[in-house]
């Protein structure tokens, strides 16, 4: 067969779903670690211990590379998919209305936009805390470094908005990935949808609560 593509659109979506779901696992684990900041006793001993253990892990570089690959594959394939779909309808409708009573800004319709904001947030976040490009005072305990970043109004704002939009991304993304994986019939899908809503709200509220807490209460 001539010009046969290496993988079909169904396989492409499967890979997007797998990378999305693995990234969900990552953000859930990341949030669990971050929430240790709320244990303020003993100068954030719990968070500091967790952060130091994590940083000293021999496997850390491998995990970081794995995450990088997940992001690159996820973003690369979703962009490709988006591009293909735009080509599939070169001329749009004058009027278009959902039969599900959902607006143009429903999570499912703006995945690429919420994704791009999340990407911007992730990049700023990496610059701040992984590479210390904006704040690099030496000798601070991990918790102090984080608080220093979160006290910065620009970071606080970006982190809040980024967290909320990550939740919005997952509002559709979590349950969508199960369907991309071919998981579930009608009943299981209903359950997955409920879990997805709870998960996305937990992620959004959990992450966004930290910059808000630092800004409002930890002056």
């Amino acid at each position, binding site marked *: 067969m001539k010009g046969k593509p290496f993988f*079909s659109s169904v396989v492409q979506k499967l890979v997007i779903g797998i990378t999305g779901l693995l990234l969900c696992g990552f953000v859930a684990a990341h949030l669990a670690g971050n929430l240790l900041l709320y244990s303020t006793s003993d100068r954030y001993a719990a968070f500091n211990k967790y952060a130091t253990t994590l940083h000293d892990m021999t496997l850390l570089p491998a995990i970081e590379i794995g995450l990088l690959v997940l992001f690159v594959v996820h973003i690369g394939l979703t962009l490709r998919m988006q591009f293909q779909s735009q*080509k*599939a309808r070169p001329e749009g409708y004058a009027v278009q209305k959902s039969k599900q009573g959902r607006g143009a800004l429903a999570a*499912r319709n703006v995945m690429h936009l919420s994704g791009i904001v999340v990407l911007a947030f992730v990049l700023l976040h990496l610059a701040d805390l992984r590479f210390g490009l904006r704040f690099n005072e030496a000798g601070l305990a991990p918790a102090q470094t984080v608080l220093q970043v979160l006290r910065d109004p620009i970071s606080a704002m970006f982190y809040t908005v980024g967290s909320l939009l990550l939740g919005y991304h997952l509002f559709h993304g979590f349950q969508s990935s199960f369907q991309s994986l071919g998981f579930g019939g009608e009943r299981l899908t209903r359950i997955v949808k409920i879990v997805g809503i709870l998960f996305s709200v937990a992620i959004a509220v959990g992450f966004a609560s930290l910059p808000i807490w630092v800004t409002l209460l930890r002056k």
Partner: protein
Amino acid sequence: MSESINVTLKVWRQNGPGEAGRFETYPLENVSTHASFLEMLDILNEKLINTGKMPVAFDSDCREGICGSCGLMIDGQAHGPDRETATCQLHMRRFSDGDTITIEPWRARSFPILKDLVVDRSAFDRIIEAGGYNSINAGNAPDANAILIPKIDAEAAMDAAACIGCGACVAACKNASALLFVSAKVMHFARLPQGKPERETRVARMVAKMDEEGFGSCTNTTECEAACPKGISFSNIVSLRRESMRAQCSGRSTR
């Protein structure tokens, strides 16, 4: 409810494939609320012909919701505002006096416009040709109950077989994806014993053809299911993905 209404139609007019189109506005008075939507367009066309103008081209055949010929984007919704209703089953009592109704053709690169509201849906035929059939010799009609099919499978296959191939799923999908159509055809066969011998090649070929025809990629918005005049369930798409994976893993998908 009054027995007749006045409406204004904004209709997409296009002389031929690839030509520039435009909306034309036609006021239509005293339309019976008992008229079907297509009868209303017939009335418009009679008026246009009587005044020496070109009638609006649109597809229809059975006008009883079973053939899949009709299909219009009505006020931004495939087949109009009702669920599980083909355009030919939509009636003017669904509209109010004074309404402006925008009528557009299905829009997708794979469904090129032939004229006005008529699109070329032969891409669907080519997907069927790629695998939507049985080519094994299934023998004569077996005795009743000689082949046992679990009721749940028989029901699900029948539900999938209800697809009339109208293209509303493509029209309503923001990605112009044809996956609901393809999944209905694939799962109709895959659930029945007669369809099983060829299930791996069928799903692989039909999906490959669908991609080749230039349809977009499904992002699970379920807008197709809401637009489908036959209520084909989105769960067919989820099943197609399992079917697709099963075929890949079996190593028999390319035979």
